[in-house]
């Protein structure tokens, strides 16, 4: 190939081979991406957004208690021990799915379990708790959903773990399962407690 002027056609062939290799690599790359996408597609919560709040102080809130609407409850009152905050609404079918799971976990009293009733009427929320059981230590009610924006909440169910210093340690979007509790929530809680 070191005689450029004599063999022009071999150079052309070379260029085509080069282009062919590039195109083949490109398609291999695309197939790799497709394979990755298919592999990822059955992962639960693949659309869940990573929360920018992880590792940051939990946004302050000052909300009425569902069971005592005259009384307000603030984030500051939860300082000193970790707590789990579970966002739910009576309008949310996925919340019903996770309810037995979180109820079972809350009853172990491993950690304080706070309910965050989102965009609900008090009546519906109370009826829902009466019907399915109330696993929460207390429930704060955010009917307008304004505080939820500060927390980056975009639906229900969502579950947060906040440590003793008020730092958000973990968040899950979508229904909680036993597996998620065992593999994510409890390890995150143990880590938060160890670093206290």
């Amino acid at each position, binding site marked *: *190939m*070191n005689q*450029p*002027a004599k063999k*022009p056609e*071999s*150079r*052309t062939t*070379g*260029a*085509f081979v*080069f*282009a062919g290799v*590039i195109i083949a690599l490109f398609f291999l790359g695309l197939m790799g991406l497709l394979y990755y996408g298919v592999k990822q597609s059955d992962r639960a919560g693949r*659309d869940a*957004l*990573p*929360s*920018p*709040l992880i590792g940051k102080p939990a946004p302050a809130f000052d909300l009425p208690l569902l069971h005592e609407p005259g009384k307000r409850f603030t984030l500051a009152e939860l300082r000193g021990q970790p707590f789990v905050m579970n966002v739910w609404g009576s*309008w*949310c*079918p*996925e*919340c019903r799915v996770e309810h037995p799971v979180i109820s079972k976990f809350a009853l172990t009293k491993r950690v304080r379990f706070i309910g965050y009733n989102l*965009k609900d009427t008090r009546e519906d929320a109370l009826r829902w708790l009466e019907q399915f059981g109330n696993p929460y230590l207390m429930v704060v009610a955010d009917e307008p*959903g*304004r505080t*939820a*924006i*500060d*927390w*980056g909440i*975009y*639906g*229900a*169910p969502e579950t947060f773990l906040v440590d003793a210093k008020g730092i958000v340690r973990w968040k899950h979007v979508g229904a909680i399962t036993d597996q998620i509790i065992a593999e994510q929530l409890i390890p995150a809680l143990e880590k938060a407690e160890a670093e206290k």
Partner: protein
Amino acid sequence: MVVLLLLSLGSFAQVSDPTPLQFRDAAEETRFHALTAELRCVMCQNQSLADSNAQIAHDLRREVLDLMNQGKSDAEIKQFLVERYGEFVLYKPEVAGNTWLLWFGPALLLLAGAAIVFRIVRRRSGPAAGAVAHDDNQEW
């Protein structure tokens, strides 16, 4: 199956807004629409905040208008949402270490393609024109 599908969609309830947003003037409305078209709905991830009918999109549109009324700039409003929902909400993310490929990838691909085409064309026309570059005997 259909019921299951409906159930899973239900938690992202689609609602009609009971109290439509009120704009003070046309300029505010134009700015609002331009801004919300650049923001992504966090729930229904392939819609803009302007287009989405999810409950959270209603709430966020209201929040955006409130922030506008408080005299916040577009950049401050975007920052507000990024702090809460992450970079994801921006259809035009910042040019940063982890987004430069997103921004410049297509241009790089185009340049690479142009370079390949240029080489092929030069190889083909080179000998005929008699002006074969003496430096191109390394690769083929």
